[in-house]
């Protein structure tokens, strides 16, 4: 008994950061992929190489870091992709190339994101509609709303002040030469989401809620509030991703299409348990980077798009099979 308690004291540090038994395999996979990319394209180790890669991966990584909140709480957020579209289209409508409006437009977009998250959360919590359906409905609605707002195609330019976040870089930094603003945003958002998920009461309550909602309720967890916060985290991260994507590539109508599934894929590659109870923000970000690395590698190798689809499908399934296998081996019965 004494020995056991000593053991437990030692492992407690691990316990507090999401209790990954070992280092999550996604980090090894990511490292291996980056090495492979470097071999196929030596320029990748130049700052332009990896910084471009990180800049490009930032929106998906942020989206995955938000999506993991909903996944850990036991649900899905399918509306994230359409919220990206709405953010880009809406910003272009409101801004119409006037730089002065940037800040309030960004504020409005975050307010829209907040509202979307709250509505998703309310519908799931109080109307008891499963999140798969609730956010599917939201996805269709937001897509329609984006089109309705713009009558089919966005009607304004995004000024450089808005595009700064997704496009610009801070120059003249020693060692790495330059730092894309998008990467900075990822670091800040990633840290906040990491801290909330793995250091605060909220994070533990999210895990409890996804693990066993009834037990969470009977233990005093404000389950409705926690669930709403999970959806809000996802929605706000989607708005952030939208701002970065709009910045990176400018206005278009179907920016967000498919991003929700990619974000869920990233979380799954990062070892998240679908239907709740287990998941990590850093691993989800790593999952997003892994997914982007795979696409980049396939690009470099010159594989055609169809192959990329197949590879993504296989990796998705393989990641889950592997995670299940590990869990079964580690988990006893």
């Amino acid at each position: 008994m004494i020995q056991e308690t000593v053991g437990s004291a030692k492992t407690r540090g691990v316990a507090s950061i999401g209790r990954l038994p070992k280092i999550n395999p996604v980090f090894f996979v990511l490292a291996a992929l980056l090495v492979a990319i470097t071999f196929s394209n030596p320029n990748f180790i130049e700052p332009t190489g990896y910084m471009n890669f990180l800049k490009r991966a930032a929106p998906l990584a942020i989206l995955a870091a938000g999506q993991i909140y909903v996944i850990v709480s036991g649900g899905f957020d399918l509306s994230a992709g359409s919220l990206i579209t709405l953010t880009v289209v809406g910003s272009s409508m409101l801004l119409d190339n006037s730089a002065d409006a940037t800040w309030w437009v960004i504020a409005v977009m975050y307010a829209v994101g907040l509202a979307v998250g709250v509505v998703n959360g309310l519908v799931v919590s109080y109307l008891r509609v499963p999140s798969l359906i609730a956010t599917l409905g939201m996805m269709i609605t937001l897509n329609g709303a984006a089109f309705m707002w713009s009558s089919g195609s966005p009607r304004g330019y995004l000024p450089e002040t808005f595009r700064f976040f997704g496009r610009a870089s801070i120059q003249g930094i020693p060692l790495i030469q330059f730092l894309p603003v998008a990467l900075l945003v990822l670091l800040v958002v990633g840290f906040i989401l990491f801290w909330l998920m793995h250091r605060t009461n909220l994070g533990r309550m999210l895990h409890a809620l996804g693990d066993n909602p009834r037990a969470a309720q009977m233990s005093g967890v404000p389950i409705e509030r926690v669930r709403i916060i999970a959806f809000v985290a996802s929605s706000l991260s989607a708005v952030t991703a939208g701002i970065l994507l709009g910045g990176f590539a400018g206005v278009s109508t179907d920016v967000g299409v498919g991003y929700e599934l990619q974000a869920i894929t990233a979380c799954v590659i990062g070892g998240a348990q679908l239907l709740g109870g287990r998941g990590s923000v850093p691993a989800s970000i790593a999952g997003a980077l892994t997914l982007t690395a795979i696409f980049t590698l396939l690009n470099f190798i010159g594989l055609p798009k169809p192959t990329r689809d197949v590879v993504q499908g296989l990796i998705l399934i393989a990641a889950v099979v592997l995670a299940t296998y590990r869990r079964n081996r580690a988990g006893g019965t």
Partner: protein
Amino acid sequence: MNTKHPAIEMRGITKSFPGVKALKNVSFSAHCGEVHALAGENGAGKSTLMKILSGIYRPDGGSVVVNGEERHFTHPLAAIRAGIAVIYQEFSLLPERTVAQNIFLGREPTRRGLIDHKAMNDEARRALALFGSAHRIEPSTVVADLDVASQQLVEIAKAVSLEAKVIVMDEPTAALNEAECEVLFGLVDTLKKSGVAIVYITHRMPEITRLANRVTVLKDGEVAVRFDHVPEPEAIVRAMVGRDLGDFYAEPAAPQEIGDVVLSVHNAGNERLKNVSFELRAGEIVGFSGLQGAGRVALAQAIFGLSPFTEGEITLSGKPARFTSPREAIRAGVGLLPGDRKAEALVLMQSVVDNGMLTSRALSGLSGNANATPFVSAEAMEKLLRELDVRAGSFAQDIKALSGGNQQKAIVARWLALAPRLLIFIEPTRGIDVNAKAGIYHLMRDLARKGTAIMMVSSDLPEVLGVSDRVLVMRNGELVAAFSRGASEADVMLAATGEEAVAA
């Protein structure tokens, strides 16, 4: 009937799970027309042994012999076909299907390839008739609309209707009140007479005395002892835990230990409760007895805000306390340990510490440090868990790996961290082995000594009488009687069932 061979014989069964040796060279048999009781602490290997018998697990070593023929079941269906039926401890009914559909699950009667619903309902009605006219369960009722006791009876009817040669009953009385138990015992007698071999798993000594022909006690995956007769209960208990149980229940509270009124409920009610009035005082343990569905759990849930009172005056330490959510109740100092730990208390994928700290974290600020809540820090929680003697390889491991008793203690720790004024225990020792039971009882008493008012809802009458300072009895949503310590089982039963029961 072949009397030369036992109906079933398990020889030298060995089974390991990763890291655990669950069964070591266990032999067990049951003859036609006998009740063979299988006793043992939780985790002793009873359920694993029965899961091997029913084909859910495959043994690593040893053999299963049915009617003198060695069998290797690869699927539960094979066991069922061989005449082995199991009534599991956890309900295995589908709530959205009808009684008849549940009874004939996977073997619906068909005519020309199509299910014959009428025949199925008729057959089901016949199986249910075994319980006499008292339980008129309509075969076309959806199971979710039945009360718990009726559900358990459906479960038993399901096994009986298989016309099995061997019936395994895994704690069949766990959800039944005494009267319903008697119906079940009568049924066991009937089955025994008709030549069925019955394996009866239970913690309750009176049931062994009442029913068994032979008793096997498992301990740590091995056969501790086998009696070819029914010995004194003490002998069985000794074999199960390996020591005497002199101080099974803790000392009751002395009068001076009972303090001020903590909870006062006056003329309270909701759709399941009528005109309930009582008081709970600091330092006392009050047991609530009654039949299933009498309203004891509903009362606990009403106090806890889960299905709130709609009328009446409720005060907690003098302040109005008609709570509308558990969170509100918890904030005011009420805690509740639910009867179904797995469904309502545990977050299985999280660590022991996380489980212990859940409520403390829930009541703290959302962005507060998870390892240092105002109520308890992670270090303090570990200390508390150690004090409660929660046994785990590490408190950072997932709680699902712990035994029932240790899980329950971790949940107790959850509430202790908040120092509640009132703690409600529902079936505090359900599924917990004898040894750990005593630990829980003493823990409850210690809490009371420290000034907590304790409300205990239990279907285990000896437990209620042994633990409580006062016993309140409910019937049909009303409080019908109050006894001080020293009441007899008969008194309480009479109050719980009312006069009609005497006639039945």
